[in-house]
Protein backbone atom coordinates (compact mmCIF):
# COMPACT_ATOMS: atom_id res chain seq x y z
CA UNK A 1 0.00 0.00 0.00
CA UNK A 2 1.37 3.44 -0.90
CA UNK A 3 2.60 5.46 2.03
CA UNK A 4 3.82 8.91 2.96
CA UNK A 5 7.43 8.80 4.13
CA UNK A 6 8.86 11.30 6.60
CA UNK A 7 12.45 11.87 7.61
CA UNK A 8 13.99 12.09 10.10
CA UNK A 9 11.81 10.27 12.59
CA UNK A 10 13.30 12.30 15.44
CA UNK A 11 15.22 15.56 15.34
CA UNK A 12 16.76 17.41 18.25
CA UNK A 13 17.80 20.99 17.66
CA UNK A 14 19.05 23.97 19.60
CA UNK A 15 16.69 26.89 20.08
CA UNK A 16 17.21 29.45 17.32
CA UNK A 17 18.46 26.92 14.79
CA UNK A 18 16.82 26.21 11.46
CA UNK A 19 15.30 22.80 10.81
CA UNK A 20 13.97 21.19 7.67
CA UNK A 21 11.51 18.36 7.93
CA UNK A 22 11.21 16.19 4.86
CA UNK A 23 8.33 14.27 3.38
CA UNK A 24 7.82 12.13 0.30
CA UNK A 25 4.10 12.16 -0.49
CA UNK A 26 2.31 9.43 -2.41
CA UNK A 27 3.39 9.76 -6.02
CA UNK A 28 0.08 10.54 -7.75
CA UNK A 29 -1.22 12.85 -5.03
CA UNK A 30 -1.65 16.54 -5.75
CA UNK A 31 -2.52 18.03 -2.36
CA UNK A 32 0.00 18.22 0.45
CA UNK A 33 -0.34 19.15 4.09
CA UNK A 34 1.59 19.67 7.28
CA UNK A 35 0.02 19.15 10.70
CA UNK A 36 1.51 19.21 14.14
CA UNK A 37 0.63 17.50 17.39
CA UNK A 38 1.99 18.77 20.66
CA UNK A 39 2.41 15.89 23.10
CA UNK A 40 -0.95 14.74 24.41
CA UNK A 41 -2.91 17.28 22.42
CA UNK A 42 -4.96 17.24 19.25
CA UNK A 43 -3.65 17.30 15.73
CA UNK A 44 -3.53 20.87 14.37
CA UNK A 45 -3.49 22.01 10.76
CA UNK A 46 -0.50 24.08 9.69
CA UNK A 47 -0.63 24.46 5.92
CA UNK A 48 -1.99 23.04 2.69
CA UNK A 49 -0.15 23.14 -0.63
CA UNK A 50 -1.48 22.64 -4.13
CA UNK A 51 -0.19 23.48 -7.58
CA UNK A 52 3.12 24.69 -6.16
CA UNK A 53 1.63 27.23 -3.83
CA UNK A 54 0.13 27.51 -0.38
CA UNK A 55 -3.64 27.17 -0.59
CA UNK A 56 -4.36 27.72 3.09
CA UNK A 57 -2.40 28.28 6.28
CA UNK A 58 -3.28 28.50 9.92
CA UNK A 59 -2.37 31.25 12.37
CA UNK A 60 0.33 28.92 13.73
CA UNK A 61 2.07 29.05 10.35
CA UNK A 62 3.79 32.40 10.80
CA UNK A 63 6.81 33.91 9.04
CA UNK A 64 9.12 31.42 10.73
CA UNK A 65 7.57 28.60 8.71
CA UNK A 66 7.87 27.87 5.02
CA UNK A 67 7.08 24.96 2.72
CA UNK A 68 8.57 23.89 -0.53
CA UNK A 69 8.26 21.16 -3.12
CA UNK A 70 11.78 21.46 -4.50
CA UNK A 71 11.94 18.58 -6.95
CA UNK A 72 8.49 17.18 -7.70
CA UNK A 73 8.77 14.37 -5.17
CA UNK A 74 9.80 15.88 -1.82
CA UNK A 75 7.72 18.24 0.27
CA UNK A 76 9.55 20.10 3.01
CA UNK A 77 8.66 22.17 6.06
CA UNK A 78 11.29 24.65 7.21
CA UNK A 79 11.29 26.37 10.57
CA UNK A 80 13.73 29.25 10.38
CA UNK A 81 14.49 29.94 14.03
CA UNK A 82 13.10 27.27 16.30
CA UNK A 83 11.53 28.04 19.65
CA UNK A 84 10.97 25.73 22.59
CA UNK A 85 7.24 25.72 21.84
CA UNK A 86 7.89 24.31 18.37
CA UNK A 87 8.60 20.98 20.04
CA UNK A 88 5.94 18.65 18.67
CA UNK A 89 5.27 15.78 16.32
CA UNK A 90 4.98 17.06 12.78
CA UNK A 91 2.91 15.05 10.33
CA UNK A 92 2.95 15.33 6.58
CA UNK A 93 -0.12 14.21 4.64
CA UNK A 94 -1.06 13.95 1.01
CA UNK A 95 -4.31 13.55 -0.87
CA UNK A 96 -5.51 12.89 -4.39
CA UNK A 97 -8.39 15.31 -3.80
CA UNK A 98 -10.72 12.52 -2.74
CA UNK A 99 -10.87 12.62 1.05
CA UNK A 100 -10.64 8.87 1.23
CA UNK A 101 -7.15 9.12 -0.15
CA UNK A 102 -5.89 11.40 2.63
CA UNK A 103 -2.82 9.66 4.02
CA UNK A 104 -0.59 10.72 6.91
CA UNK A 105 3.06 9.91 7.39
CA UNK A 106 4.41 8.50 10.66
CA UNK A 107 5.68 11.90 11.72
CA UNK A 108 8.88 13.63 12.78
CA UNK A 109 9.29 14.26 16.48
CA UNK A 110 10.98 17.64 16.82
CA UNK A 111 12.57 18.45 20.14
CA UNK A 112 13.89 21.99 20.64
CA UNK A 113 16.32 22.34 23.54
Amino acid at each position, binding site marked *: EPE*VTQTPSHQVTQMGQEVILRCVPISNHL*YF*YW*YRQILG*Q*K*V*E*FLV*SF*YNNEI*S*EKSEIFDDQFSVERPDGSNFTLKIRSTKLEDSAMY*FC*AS*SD*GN*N*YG*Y*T*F*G*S*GTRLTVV
Partner: protein
Amino acid sequence: QQQVKQSPQSLIVQKGGISIINCAYENTAFDYFPWYQQFPGKGPALLIAIRPDVSEKKEGRFTISFNKSAKQFSLHIMDSQPGDSATYFCAATIASNTGKLIFGQGTTLQVKP
Protein backbone atom coordinates in the same frame (compact mmCIF):
# COMPACT_ATOMS: atom_id res chain seq x y z
CA GLN B 1 -17.01 28.01 14.89
CA GLN B 2 -14.16 25.98 13.44
CA GLN B 3 -13.95 23.74 16.51
CA VAL B 4 -14.85 20.10 16.81
CA LYS B 5 -15.47 19.00 20.39
CA GLN B 6 -14.82 15.38 21.30
CA SER B 7 -15.65 13.36 24.39
CA PRO B 8 -14.72 11.50 26.47
CA GLN B 9 -11.02 12.23 26.78
CA SER B 10 -10.36 8.63 27.81
CA LEU B 11 -12.36 5.44 27.81
CA ILE B 12 -11.83 2.02 29.32
CA VAL B 13 -13.93 -0.85 27.95
CA GLN B 14 -13.90 -4.58 28.58
CA LYS B 15 -13.16 -6.89 25.69
CA GLY B 16 -16.36 -7.56 23.79
CA GLY B 17 -18.00 -4.36 24.96
CA ILE B 18 -19.14 -1.36 22.95
CA SER B 19 -16.96 1.75 22.80
CA ILE B 20 -18.74 5.02 22.05
CA ILE B 21 -16.99 8.30 21.27
CA ASN B 22 -18.92 11.49 20.61
CA CYS B 23 -18.18 14.62 18.63
CA ALA B 24 -19.98 17.90 18.07
CA TYR B 25 -19.40 20.70 15.60
CA GLU B 26 -20.79 24.15 14.92
CA ASN B 27 -19.86 24.99 11.35
CA THR B 28 -22.76 23.84 9.16
CA ALA B 29 -20.53 24.12 6.09
CA PHE B 30 -18.63 20.99 7.14
CA ASP B 31 -19.64 18.20 4.80
CA TYR B 32 -17.22 15.38 5.47
CA PHE B 33 -16.57 13.76 8.82
CA PRO B 34 -13.74 11.20 9.08
CA TRP B 35 -12.56 9.27 12.08
CA TYR B 36 -8.87 8.55 12.52
CA GLN B 37 -7.14 5.91 14.61
CA GLN B 38 -3.66 6.62 15.94
CA PHE B 39 -1.27 4.17 17.56
CA PRO B 40 1.70 5.44 19.59
CA GLY B 41 4.50 6.72 17.37
CA LYS B 42 2.37 6.55 14.23
CA GLY B 43 0.40 9.02 12.18
CA PRO B 44 -3.39 9.10 12.18
CA ALA B 45 -4.92 6.49 9.89
CA LEU B 46 -8.35 6.87 8.33
CA LEU B 47 -10.79 4.48 9.94
CA ILE B 48 -14.21 5.38 8.58
CA ALA B 49 -15.92 8.52 7.30
CA ILE B 50 -19.40 9.86 6.64
CA ARG B 51 -21.08 12.62 4.69
CA PRO B 52 -24.11 14.43 6.16
CA ASP B 53 -26.58 13.04 3.64
CA VAL B 54 -26.69 9.73 5.55
CA SER B 55 -27.43 9.08 9.21
CA GLU B 56 -25.33 5.98 9.66
CA LYS B 57 -22.41 4.20 8.10
CA LYS B 58 -21.11 0.81 9.09
CA GLU B 59 -17.83 -0.88 8.21
CA GLY B 60 -17.24 -4.11 10.04
CA ARG B 61 -17.27 -3.45 13.78
CA PHE B 62 -17.13 0.32 13.30
CA THR B 63 -20.24 2.46 12.89
CA ILE B 64 -20.66 6.21 12.58
CA SER B 65 -23.98 7.69 13.65
CA PHE B 66 -24.67 11.17 12.34
CA ASN B 67 -27.28 13.63 13.60
CA LYS B 68 -27.30 16.62 11.26
CA SER B 69 -29.89 18.65 13.18
CA ALA B 70 -27.97 18.29 16.45
CA LYS B 71 -24.61 18.74 14.69
CA GLN B 72 -23.28 15.65 16.39
CA PHE B 73 -21.70 12.42 15.26
CA SER B 74 -20.36 9.43 17.08
CA LEU B 75 -18.19 6.38 16.58
CA HIS B 76 -19.35 3.03 17.89
CA ILE B 77 -16.90 0.15 18.12
CA MET B 78 -18.77 -3.10 18.57
CA ASP B 79 -17.16 -6.16 20.17
CA SER B 80 -14.16 -4.05 21.21
CA GLN B 81 -10.83 -5.87 21.14
CA PRO B 82 -7.51 -5.18 22.89
CA GLY B 83 -6.05 -4.40 19.45
CA ASP B 84 -8.49 -1.48 19.22
CA SER B 85 -6.61 0.23 22.05
CA ALA B 86 -5.47 3.48 20.46
CA THR B 87 -6.29 7.18 20.30
CA TYR B 88 -9.28 8.07 18.17
CA PHE B 89 -9.81 11.46 16.58
CA CYS B 90 -12.93 12.75 14.93
CA ALA B 91 -12.45 15.41 12.30
CA ALA B 92 -14.43 17.62 9.98
CA THR B 93 -13.75 19.40 6.75
CA ILE B 94 -15.34 21.18 3.84
CA ALA B 95 -14.64 18.69 1.08
CA SER B 96 -14.67 21.20 -1.76
CA ASN B 97 -12.11 23.46 -0.12
CA THR B 98 -8.43 22.91 0.56
CA GLY B 99 -9.02 19.69 2.45
CA LYS B 100 -7.95 21.13 5.79
CA LEU B 101 -9.06 18.82 8.58
CA ILE B 102 -10.26 20.19 11.90
CA PHE B 103 -9.60 17.56 14.55
CA GLY B 104 -11.29 16.88 17.83
CA GLN B 105 -9.21 16.61 20.99
CA GLY B 106 -8.87 12.84 20.80
CA THR B 107 -10.05 9.91 22.91
CA THR B 108 -7.64 7.38 24.34
CA LEU B 109 -9.34 3.99 24.31
CA GLN B 110 -8.12 1.09 26.40
CA VAL B 111 -9.76 -2.26 25.88
CA LYS B 112 -9.09 -4.62 28.76
CA PRO B 113 -8.77 -8.35 28.03
